[in-house]
Each structure stands twice: as structure tokens, then as C-alpha cells.
């Protein structure tokens, strides 16, 4: 497994899950809202906050009905630099998916430490290679992709000499139905490509990311907003800060709970003995008396002879008086 290293933070096996708050276009074109998203993402426990930086012309035809919508969501270069500096101040990594060379240039000026590509750009060879040439780690979303598509995209990037790549399993339906989530893909992709694999979650709620981590996801990405009721298109499918915190907490719990797969009891011996059984006598017994099963009970706690020796004990003679309800000990029998 080839770990990723983003600004000193290792991503991969035996490492804490790298959590990305996908703020996308939830800034609604407003720098103050963007900064608020950065602040709240940092407070919510995300390792990185991710936006989309674009010039509408880069991906949208001017004749498209959405052109003006996207044009209104543009934030200027100077503002992006200010937002990235704010993120640095708030101790959270800043990045964005970019949609062409112009937006890539803006992102680079922000000093972003890694790149994240959109699922829809997995076949966009020249963009992938522009990113690859920068030599920074790249996280590739794979919604709608076959393993052949992923293979080809990895090769495009590797041809630039950059092998610092992680991939995110992703289903590009909003919201994703639980039935089509196919989280086991995380395991298959990891085995196949031997690079860090994460999950970009578009299901409702906060449970699926934790399960993805249980299945080996090294990275989790989830849409993030400060208020679901805001008018932009992605707010209502995003988590609010309190929900995002809950998701992060679920991931941390999952990491703690997974363990190494080796079944070694951690319960203290006292509680094991309190819960397990041993052989007791159910009436007063005289020294030399022969023990029979009907005067023996197998009861809690485990302070006498173990239950598996019941047949062995049956018929043995005692070598001292034993009071009713006392455990039968090895030194009690001849």
C-alpha cells in the first residue's frame, strides 16, 4: 500500500481517516459565507475543506440554462486567496476541485496542498495531466466510473511522473439510495490498486461514512453547509455543522472499535470469574463422603473447580468437611 502524504499528514493503512468537508458551491458566491464554511468545517473536526473553483466558461456552454447560475457563483482570485489564508489560520487544509487551467491557476495561487478532482472529470485527460504535473497529491473521485476508467485516469496522472494518488468510491446520485451504495467496492478497489481508497458519501445521514471506514476507507468526503435551508442547489443534501460533528465522532468511534482481528479478551479476570461458573456443593458434606452429581451445582462465580471436570469429580471422596453453598476446590477432594 502506497500511502499518501498531504502536508505531513499520512493517509492510508493504520492512519486516522482523512475527513474532507465538501463545501462545493455552498458559499453561494459570497466570500463571507465561504469563510464561515471554513470556520465551521474546522470546528466540526474536518481535516480539509474543499470548494469548487471555476470560471463558468470552463465547463458550461454560454447557451446553457445554468450558465448564469454558475456565473453568479464565481468568486474572484483575490477572494479565494483570502479564504485560503483564513483556512490556514483556522488550522484546516484548503483545496478545491478545479474545472480548467484558469481555475487551476487560481487554486495554485492559494497554496493548496493537494488536489481533488470531480467524478465527471475522470475522463478529462488534459486536466488530470495538468494536475499531475504539479507533483502534489491528487484525490480522484470515481462516481459513474468502471475500473477500466479508473485505470486509465491513474495512468494519465502517472504518465506525468506523479504516483501520489488516492481514489474515492462514489455514487453520483443525490441522494444515493442505500441499496446502490455498494460499500464493499472500497475493499475491492483497495486490493486491486493498492493505493489509499476513500468514500465520497452522497447518502442521507451520518451512518454510512462510519461503515465505509469499517470496510477500510482511508478518506471520507461529505457535503457541508452551515444551513440546509439556504437557497443554493446543494445545501439541502449537505450536513450542517452539528451533523458533521456527529459523523466525525462516529468515524472516530469506528476507528477505535475495529481492532486487529485477534480475539484476545480484554475483560479483567475478576469480571470473567464473576460471569463464569464453577462447581459448588448444595448441602453440608462430611469429610470422606463420596460426591455425587445431585449434591453438586454448577454456579457463578468461577472460584471452584471448572465445570468441565464435573464428571471427573463425580464419585470422588472429600478430604474435609464442606459447608453448604461453598465452592468445591481441588484440595477438597482425595
Amino acid at each position: 500500500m502506497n500511502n499518501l502524504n498531504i502536508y505531513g499528514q499520512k493517509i492510508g493503512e493504520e492512519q486516522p481517516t482523512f475527513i474532507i468537508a465538501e463545501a462545493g458551491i455552498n458559499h453561494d458566491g459570497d466570500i463571507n459565507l465561504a469563510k464561515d464554511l471554513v470556520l465551521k468545517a474546522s470546528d466540526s473536526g474536518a481535516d480539509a475543506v474543499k470548494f469548487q473553483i471555476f470560471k463558468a466558461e470552463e465547463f458550461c456552454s454560454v447557451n446553457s440554462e445554468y450558465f448564469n447560475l454558475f456565473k453568479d457563483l464565481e468568486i474572484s482570485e483575490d477572494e479565494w486567496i483570502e479564504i485560503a489564508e483564513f483556512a490556514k489560520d483556522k488550522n484546516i487544509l484548503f483545496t478545491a476541485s478545479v474545472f480548467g487551467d484558469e481555475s487551476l491557476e487560481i487554486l495554485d495561487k492559494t497554496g493548496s496542498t493537494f488536489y481533488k478532482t470531480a467524478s465527471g472529470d475522470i475522463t478529462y485527460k488534459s486536466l488530470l495531466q495538468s494536475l499531475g504535473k504539479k507533483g502534489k497529491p491528487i484525490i480522484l473521485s470515481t462516481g459513474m466510473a468502471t475500473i477500466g476508467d479508473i485505470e486509465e485516469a491513474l495512468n494519465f496522472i502517472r504518465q506525468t511522473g506523479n504516483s501520489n494518488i488516492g481514489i474515492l468510491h462514489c455514487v453520483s446520485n443525490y441522494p444515493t439510495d442505500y441499496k446502490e451504495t455498494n460499500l464493499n467496492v472500497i475493499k475491492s478497489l483497495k486490493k486491486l490498486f493498492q493505493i489509499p481508497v476513500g468514500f465520497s458519501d452522497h447518502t442521507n445521514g451520518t451512518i454510512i461514512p462510519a461503515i465505509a471506514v469499517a470496510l477500510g476507507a482511508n478518506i471520507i468526503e461529505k457535503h457541508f453547509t452551515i444551513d440546509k435551508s439556504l437557497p443554493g442547489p446543494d445545501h439541502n443534501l449537505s450536513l450542517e455543522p452539528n451533523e458533521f460533528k456527529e459523523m466525525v465522532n462516529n468515524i472516530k468511534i469506528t476507528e477505535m472499535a475495529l481492532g486487529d482481528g485477534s480475539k484476545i479478551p480484554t475483560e479483567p479476570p475478576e469480571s470473567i470469574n464473576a460471569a463464569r461458573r464453577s462447581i459448588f456443593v448444595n448441602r453440608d458434606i462430611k469429610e470422606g463422603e463420596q460426591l455425587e452429581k445431585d449434591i453438586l451445582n454448577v454456579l457463578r462465580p468461577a472460584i471452584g473447580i471448572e465445570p468441565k471436570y464435573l464428571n471427573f469429580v463425580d464419585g470422588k471422596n472429600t478430604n474435609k468437611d464442606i459447608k453448604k453453598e461453598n465452592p468445591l476446590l481441588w484440595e477438597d477432594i482425595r
Partner: protein
Amino acid sequence: MKISNIGIGTTEIGPDKTYIIAEISGSHAGSLSKMKKLIEAASRSGADAVKVQKFYADDLVVKDYEYYEILKDLEFNDSDWSKIISFAKNSKIPILVDVFDSDSVDFLNNLGVAGFKLHTTDINNLKLIKNVAVTGKPLFLSVGASNLNEIELARNTIFNYHRNLVLMYGFQSYPTPVEEAKLPFIPILKENFDLNIGFSDHSPGGSIESFSVPLISAALGASVIEKHITINRALKDPDYQSALNPDEFKDFVEVLRRIEQGLKYSGFEISDKEIDYAETVKRRIVAKKHINKGQKIRQSDLCFKRAPKGMFINSLRMVIGRTSRIELNSDDPITEEVII
């Protein structure tokens, strides 16, 4: 999954390279010179370590035990043992010893053996297990023919002192038939105990299985392979049944070293050799008939054949409807250069 590597000398035991132990066991037949010959043979074979067994027959077995006499004849005295250990050192091969009594543990530890092995004989002998564990030396624990319960108790005892532990799976049945190997247990054992697993192979010496069974164990994740070595099976020295002759052992090490290269996988990527193969066998686009310079190329002008040059069929969309830059004859390759 954490897999701890244990360092013996400069070798690491772990998933990257199989650690091969040449097991001398009783093959020396009680002769110090044979013992030395075997250590030399093990060293020359390329094995990573040689292993011997130190016991006192009278402490190990009762007088009427069927192998008492044989075992009695296999004993060496302390002065011989000092010679054996230093001979191994001079032969530049780490020596591991199966110990059966606590006095030998201290004695051998002082002589500087590379590690200890505990035989299945002592899986329940927690006192001896403890005495071996306190040395902190790398420990190979035989878990063949043992219950999970026995393995766990032994493991727990060792873990009180260190975790430089390899569980050695496999058992001796003079020799052991392949149906008894249950090789899929190796990765299961590894997963459940989160430790390096070794395989003690006892397939019939000289059989195909004597090579293939341990190689398969490596493919299933065994990071240590132990095999018996003998001077010559025809001599029928003790334990000859599952032993390899020195030349066979050398071959085995060579084959394993080659084959383990094929067990490496670091993510799907077509290799240069695979690319060469693909270039030779995959069909390419060639002219089916004469095409004039400047002629628009139609599908009916093309066919697909193995050829030294030309685009593969999956580039057909780049060809159809383009114009030929040059005159082409039947079987001429269609390359990016010939189309406009």
C-alpha cells in the same frame, strides 16, 4: 493489519521474503562430523537458518517409548554443543535450536544462538515456554496438531515477555501426506493471531509435493518455511522420510526465491513484458486492399491482423473517415502518421 517483523541477524521475518529453515533434526545420527557436514550443506544451500534439536532422551521420553533408543543415540554432550554452535557461526548461518529443557535454554542462550524453537511436544509446557520467552530471543512455536486453546495459552505466556514470535504450522507423520496439509488454515491463523506464520513441511522427500506444498504455503502467506535436510536419503538416517538431500535443498531454495518474485503485487499495472506481448499478439489495423494517397478511408478498406506496426482495433474511431497521407498496399499498417 500489523505484522511484526522479528530481526535475526540482519534478516527480517515478514511478508517480503520467505525465511527458510533447514531442519537437521535427527539427520546427524549422533555423529558430530555428520552434524557439521549438514550445517555446511545448509549454509551452502542458501537457507536463512539451520535448526537442530537439543534434548536428553531420559528427560524427554520414558524408557519404553518406541523411539527411546534412537533418541538416546542422537544426544550430544555440552562440549560437542559448544563446537556445533561455533561451527554454525563459522559457517555463517544463523542457528536455531529446539529446546526441551530449561537448563539447555540458559546454556544455549549463553552460546549465542540466533533463536529458539519449541516443539509441539511442549505446547502445554508453560514453564518451559516461559523460560524460553524470558531470554527475549526470537521464538518459533510449533502449533501443529494443537488446539486453539493450547496455542492461545502458549502465546499469552510468551506475550508476557515479548512478541518476537512466529507460529509454525504443520506436523510430522513420517512423512505427512498432502491431504493432511490443510494449507488454507495458514492465512486464517495469520488473521486470527496477527502474527507471522511459518510452515513446517513434512511432504515425502523427493516427491513433487516436497517442492510444491511448501511453495503453496508461501503463496498463502507463510513467511517462514522449515524443511528437513539429510546427507542422503538412501542412508535412512533418522527423519530421512521428509528430508531433502543437500542438492535438492539447494534447488528448493532457488525455486522458492524465483517463485516468490511472482507472489509480489503492488497494484494493477501492465508490465513492460506484458506490453511487449500485447504488441505482438493484439490485432492491429492494416490496409485490406490498395488505398490511394488522399483517399478517404472506409471501414471496408481495413482489416485487423497481428502485425509489427499499426494502431489497435480500439483506435478504429480515429481512422475511419480520415484521409490517407500516402499510398497504401494490402497489409500495410495504419499508424497515426499515415492518416491526416
